[in-house]
């Protein structure tokens, strides 16, 4: 206060400049606030020098080129992998096809298709293992692809055992009436069974009857378990 009064004489002389000082300081405060705002907003690209912008642009272009190269490399790798994937898929499909065929042959999967449904009735228990073996042989000779005798799927290692009237297939006793399912060409297989002196004749001589029905679709559902060879090993 005392300073102010002491300077009172100069008040008019100071009046103009102090207003000017206030205006300048106001402008400075405004400028500081604005600049801080702008810097915080991150909009710093607009007030950068052309040289800096050129350097920035150059860096961005180099980065873009590098990324484009990377894209091209990745696309080449993709098409390469896709091509090899195609050949792998083809090999896989072929392998799957062969596995399916072998599975039907080995009896590890159910099979369906046109074929015969054969019913063997043997009231006098006169059918011998050899007769059923003959039946299977005839069916196979006529092109049967999957055969089921009673509850047993016939596989590559099937064997008929037992005695006349109590035939066993792979250890399980076959009863009467006995249903034999065979997938293959129905007329061919029916003809093979019906030839004079063939299976039908033999069974009828033993006192039984054989009924052959041709079916458009026969389901062979009995399965075999895969037996791991104990002695035989792939050779060569």
């Amino acid at each position, binding site marked *: 206060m005392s300073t102010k009064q002491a300077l009172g004489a100069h008040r008019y002389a100071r009046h103009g400049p102090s207003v*000017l000082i206030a205006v300048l*300081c106001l402008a400075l*405060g405004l400028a500081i606030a604005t600049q801080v705002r702008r810097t915080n907003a991150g909009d710093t690209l607009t007030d950068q*020098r052309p*040289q*800096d912008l050129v350097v920035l642009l150059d860096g961005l272009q180099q980065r873009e080129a590098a990324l484009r190269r990377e894209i091209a490399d990745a696309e080449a790798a993709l098409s390469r992998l896709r091509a090899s994937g195609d050949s792998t898929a083809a090999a896989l499909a072929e392998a799957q096809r062969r596995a399916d065929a072998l599975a039907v042959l080995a009896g590890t999967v159910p099979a369906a298709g046109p074929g015969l449904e054969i019913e063997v009735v043997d009231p006098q228990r006169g059918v011998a293992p050899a007769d059923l073996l003959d039946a299977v042989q005839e069916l196979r000779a006529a092109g049967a692809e999957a055969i089921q005798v009673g509850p047993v799927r016939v596989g590559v290692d099937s064997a008929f055992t037992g005695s006349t009237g109590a035939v066993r297939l792979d250890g399980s006793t076959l009863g009467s009436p006995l249903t034999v399912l065979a997938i293959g060409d129905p007329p061919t297989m029916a003809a093979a069974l019906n030839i004079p002196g063939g299976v039908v004749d033999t069974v009828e001589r033993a006192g039984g009857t054989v009924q052959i029905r041709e079916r458009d679709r026969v389901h062979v559902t009995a399965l075999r378990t895969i037996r791991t060879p104990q002695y035989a090993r792939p050779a060569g």
Partner: protein
Amino acid sequence: MIGILALLLGVLLGLWLDPTVPAWVQPYLPIAVVAALDAVFGGLRARLDGIFDAKVFVVSFVSNVVVAALIVLLGDELGVGAQLSTAVVVVLGIRIFSNAAAIRRHLFRA
């Protein structure tokens, strides 16, 4: 004192109004702010030394801002804008520091 009040008022006004800066001012604004700060600290020191002169303050304020802007402009034209801006900021920063040191000695006697 009126200057400090006006400064605070200006900051508040700037925060409140959020004015847009014209494109041709944008490169010079940061340097001009630093130069003006230098003038303000110089004025504060002069006031504490008892040799404050309003005319000198106004002239130094304006000339500081103008010269700083001109140096930046010249630097841009010569292709050394970034370096000259740095030089201006360094020099003004040193001056602000020395003024602040003088003010500190006055206020705290240390």
